[in-house]
């Protein structure tokens, strides 16, 4: 089990006029190899939740175990925790600071006190993974790059720490469609190489349906339900009530079903849906 969270509660500004219960009895487990998507409204506690995973927010009550590291212990090895859980914040390009892309990506590994040889190796690897040409960008200032490139440099800065678990807070926000695809394909690629488990906050149901293996829906600080992208269509009414939606293809499936055409739950990409419909059409001809 990669991440285990039990009865997690969190209150901002306790005992003041600004007191706010951000998390209420959150229970969630993520297995190794899973891709968990967290959806929910602004203020539903998603960001507060994910920041608990690498100790940026200290545990108030409840239990969290991340990759064998028990956060309820008195002495938590935060350095190890932060090397284990890589965190990509919303608009990560706003955290770039160094004079060169190289130095920015090397910031994390340097903080881990690695040898310069190891750092060099990791910077090359990370830039390569995010699809940037090392020789072309490494000595440039990060501020000269385009928006999408900046974001990839920022993600490389996290990957260079070689985390086993990668947490991303709306990694595609503010990008154009091709930029979005690039980032999501990058996450998929990372899952096949260095990163084992991914937790991603995302608002785009179609992206969730396409990439995630598990979906957790947050509402007003608690987990409403956990399901798979395939079963999301069953929760349409609940989701709509929360002001959320279901994936476009799940809508299509429901529409087809209302017309008496049943397609499988697996049709979460347009390719699969097309194939399924073609199959049904051919089957229809045969009858």
């Amino acid at each position, binding site marked *: 089990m990669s991440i285990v969270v039990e009865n997690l509660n969190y209150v901002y*500004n306790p005992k003041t*006029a600004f007191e706010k219960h951000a998390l209420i009895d959150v229970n969630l487990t993520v297995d190794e190899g899973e891709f968990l998507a967290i959806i929910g409204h602004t203020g539903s506690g998603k960001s507060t939740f994910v*920041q608990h995973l*690498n100790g*940026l927010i200290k545990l108030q009550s409840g239990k969290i175990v991340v990759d064998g590291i028990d956060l309820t212990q008195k002495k938590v090895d935060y*350095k190890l925790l*932060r*090397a284990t859980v*890589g*965190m990509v*914040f919303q608009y*990560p390009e*706003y*955290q*770039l*600071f*160094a004079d060169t892309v190289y130095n920015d990506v090397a*910031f*994390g590994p340097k*903080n*881990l006190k690695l040898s310069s040889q190891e750092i060099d190796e990791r910077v090359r690897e990370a830039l390569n993974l995010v699809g940037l040409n090392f020789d072309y960008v490494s000595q440039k200032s990060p*501020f000269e790059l385009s928006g999408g490139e900046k974001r990839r440099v920022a993600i490389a*800065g*996290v990957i260079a*720490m070689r985390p086993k678990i990668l947490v991303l807070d709306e990694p595609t926000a503010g990008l154009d469609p091709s930029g979005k695809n690039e980032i999501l394909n990058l996450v998929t690629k990372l899952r096949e190489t260095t990163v084992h488990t991914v937790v991603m906050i995302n608002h785009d149901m179609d992206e969730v349906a396409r990439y995630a293996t598990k979906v957790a829906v947050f509402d007003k600080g608690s987990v409403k339900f956990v399901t798979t992208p395939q079963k999301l269509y069953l929760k349409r009414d609940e989701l709509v009530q929360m002001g959320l939606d279901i994936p476009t293809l799940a809508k299509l499936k429901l529409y087809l079903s209302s017309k008496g055409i049943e397609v499988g739950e697996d049709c979460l990409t347009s390719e699969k849906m097309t194939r399924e419909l073609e199959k049904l059409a051919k089957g229809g001809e045969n009858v």
Partner: protein
Amino acid sequence: MFRDVAFGQYYPAESFIHKMDARIKIVLSVLYLAGIFFIQSFFGFGIILVLLGIMIAASKVPFGMVLRSIKPILFLLVFTMILNVFFVSGGTVIVEWWIIKITSEGVLFAVRMALRLLFLVMGASLLTLTTTPVDLTHAIEKLLKPLNVIHFPVHELALIMSIALRFIPSLMEETDRIIRAQTARGADFESGNIIKRAKAFVPILIPLLIGAFKRADELATAMDARCYRGAKGRTKMKILKTGWRDWVGSFVIVLFFGVVITLNILQPQLVELVPWMFV
């Protein structure tokens, strides 16, 4: 990390003092502060204590919040007290050792000074605790308006103030965010010597500055796009109004000021009759 900063923090509540006109509150605060400087005796400090108690009760701000405003000046408070104890002499000698001489007058002076500072800060913080920054700048703009005659840019000053106030929370949030992001990358801001710690802030300051410049640029464009032309012909959405609360508040503070001044003027006559009033 920066959520604990109490300075200038508005405490939302529905209270007598919250509902007072910000202009009146500023004027009365000044009067209150001036009154404190006229007070020389513990009897006078007793009056302030009662007044402050009434004001805090009428503001519905928890006492702890008001008390928190003292934290930043605690060092100054202790420092001045120590200086006064050692360097003011008069009255009977309490301790004399080597070149150190502590006198009763010195101790009394130090205590008076400390009380004055405490009442000063607590009273002033009550103004910012009960008035939103927007109302505060609006009131300052109104109060400084006569300076327009000498071509003092009152409106611009108020605008700078309100923009600064508007962006303090944003910048704090941004700082918080950047600190979290760099901490997530293993940055350590808490250990090492001073130089090391100062260096650790570079990864925070640079993104913060870049962000601030970007925001300033965007704000200027947004203001331009909405035809901002300065003070000329500009109206306010919320107009400050004076009501019965302001009359009551003014009456209390003016009464306090009057009593303090009277005590000061009549001191030579009264000191023989009621000497305890002038300790």
